């Protein structure tokens, strides 16, 4: 029987790559590299010109990478480059306190010596992570980049999706991924709405130099205005995430460095000796925003574009990398089976895997924060008793350590040992 399709060359538009990724921050490049391991080609579109992304100086930002994220970076061949500048987190101490009170560790104590997997996380400075990702993208033949470009339109067709850049260039691929943050234009253009609320809190973020060594211990102080996290950086330095009410944070942020430190000192305590600033100061208003769907036709969202959450436990980037690893996993299996990687069924597998996880994590960090950002005597007693109870039961404590290390649940292949 005759078949008119036989021998015919299709006049359809060629794809420029398999995946177009909007957003060149951390999750976007990580996805491009993860997809490349499955033979999928990506183009990463970033609004910032390349020079703005490769600054040499330490700007004060750092990330607490969970063990699962470290494994992922290792599987992508990046950890070797990052490790010399990383600080292992060997212990996490959680304390309920009040400003000016002596910090007494009656609270929770998580020690990675209790689990065989090693340190529960690693502190890495933003500049090293960005540089490692950029260098790896440049060296990867499956990854192409468009820097200093913004997307002004996107259009879905039967066999693919295309975006138009401000420069006038049109790119076409099978799948479009929005890794463009909380105010994701990719999500908005696809008509994906968001649910969210503010906490009335703002995070002050900076790096602190201190006299005494931190011994790889991370601290989380829960205080009525909001939590203060002290995370160990290489040398006698720590990265802090200091949450205050919006008004208070605005006032503190307006202070000159010396006065800023004066406000911090009674909160920080003196257990690390004298403190000083070791980088720039940042402010981030804290709000939770969850995309009503992580997928649309030929489109998937990762990281903050899907879920911006409270950075209380450093879970923002770790959750983003988990999206990336899960999406790469789903796409690579689809590719090996010969499926259309952007078919509704393939994308539904990603959504099913990640949306429940993230919604529950966002809810848990939200609840945790509401519970601890409170000076109610009864709540204080209740959470002190709760922390003592978790501390007293090694099995429960190890569970929390594994959870903090990100090695529980249905792990994507890239995050496995």
């Amino acid at each position: 029987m005759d078949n008119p399709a036989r021998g015919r060359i299709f006049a359809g538009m060629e794809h420029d790559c398999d995946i177009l990724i909007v957003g060149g921050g951390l999750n976007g490049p990580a996805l491009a590299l993860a997809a490349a391991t499955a033979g999928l080609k990506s183009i990463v579109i970033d609004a910032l010109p390349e020079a703005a992304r490769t600054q040499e100086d330490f700007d004060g930002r750092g990330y607490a990478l969970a063990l699962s994220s470290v494994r992922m970076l290792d599987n992508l061949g990046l950890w070797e480059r990052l490790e010399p500048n990383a600080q292992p987190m060997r212990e996490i101490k959680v304390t309920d306190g009040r400003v000016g009170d002596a910090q007494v560790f009656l609270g929770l104590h998580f020690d990675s010596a209790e689990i065989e997997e090693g340190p529960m996380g690693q502190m890495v400075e933003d500049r090293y992570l960005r540089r490692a990702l950029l260098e790896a993208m440049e060296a990867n033949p499956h990854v192409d980049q468009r820097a200093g470009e913004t997307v002004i339109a996107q259009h879905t067709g039967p066999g693919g999706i295309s975006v138009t850049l401000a420069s006038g260039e049109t790119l076409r691929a099978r799948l479009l991924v929005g890794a463009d943050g909380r105010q994701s234009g990719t999500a908005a253009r696809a008509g994906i709405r968001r649910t969210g609320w503010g906490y009335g809190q703002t995070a002050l973020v900076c790096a602190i130099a201190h006299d005494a060594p931190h011994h790889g211990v991370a601290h989380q102080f829960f205080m009525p205005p909001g939590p203060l996290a002290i995370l160990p950086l290489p040398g006698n330095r720590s990265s802090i995430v200091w949450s205050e009410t919006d008004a208070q944070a605005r006032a503190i942020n307006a202070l000159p460095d010396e006065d800023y430190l004066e406000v911090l000192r009674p909160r920080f305590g003196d257990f690390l000796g004298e403190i000083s600033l070791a980088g720039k100061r940042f402010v981030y208003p804290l709000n939770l925003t969850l995309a009503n769907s992580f997928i649309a036709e030929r489109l998937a969202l990762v990281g903050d574009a899907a879920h911006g959450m409270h950075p209380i436990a450093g879970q923002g980037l770790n959750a983003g990398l988990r999206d990336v690893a899960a999406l790469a996993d789903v796409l690579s299996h689809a590719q090996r089976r010969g499926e259309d990687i952007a078919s509704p069924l393939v994308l539904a597998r990603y959504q099913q895997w990640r949306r429940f996880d993230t919604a529950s994590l966002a809810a848990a960090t939200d609840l945790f924060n509401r519970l601890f950002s409170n000076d109610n005597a009864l709540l204080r007693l209740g959470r002190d008793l709760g922390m003592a109870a978790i501390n007293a039961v090694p099995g429960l404590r190890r569970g929390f350590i594994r959870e903090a290390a990100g090695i529980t649940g249905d792990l994507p292949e890239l995050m496995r040992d």
Partner: protein
Amino acid sequence: MTETVDPSEIAKFEAMAAEWWDPNGKFKPLHMMNPVRLDYITRQIAGEYDRDLSAAKPFEGLRIVDIGCGGGLLCEPMARLGAEVVGVDAAERNIPVARLHAEQSELEIDYRHTTAEALAAENELFDVVINMEVVEHVASPLAYLKACQALLKPSGLHLCSTINRNPKSFAMAIVGAEWVMRWLPKGTHEWSKFITPDELFDLLRQAGLEPVDRKGYVFNPVSWTWKISDRDLSVNYVTAAIKPEAAAWA
């Protein structure tokens, strides 16, 4: 049309053809099952022909026919993996649906309104015959499997899935899928036409094929997904068979 296709069966599928590619439409159960079907098919082909599934077009150079191709749910993945694909269906209405979709997917697939028997009569030869969920619908399974065997090159691979015949398969495939879940129109399957794995192995041997593997497809109602099982062949199952090099039937 030849004698092994039951005309009333064709009419039933014609009524369903337009919805092939809607993942939430009438063919939702096939779409849900497709990942495990493809896992089995791709691994068997890769194993038999020593292909690396992480390579760009691992099935390049292989000629594959899918019997009962429907809307092309299996043909398109095979074409995407680089194979030269012929999709045949006895239901005429499926062919334009499948062709249209292949064009949208920018894939070249040779879809034909014909049967395995007619194709064999044209002396067409293939490296792989994919024969999924068809054998329980034909009037004479043995005559049909002989036609499939005739389509294979020597040492070619025959992949065949069907539904077991026992009280559980009646409960799952007919009561569950057709009556309760309404996944399939009532009357899609006749339980008496279902075939046990041992019966299928016997039929394959009689048709001149050497069975080499069988696995179950198991539905997990909690995760709402299908898994391949070595042991549980109680409802849906799949088999692999090889055409012997010096087959007298070739």
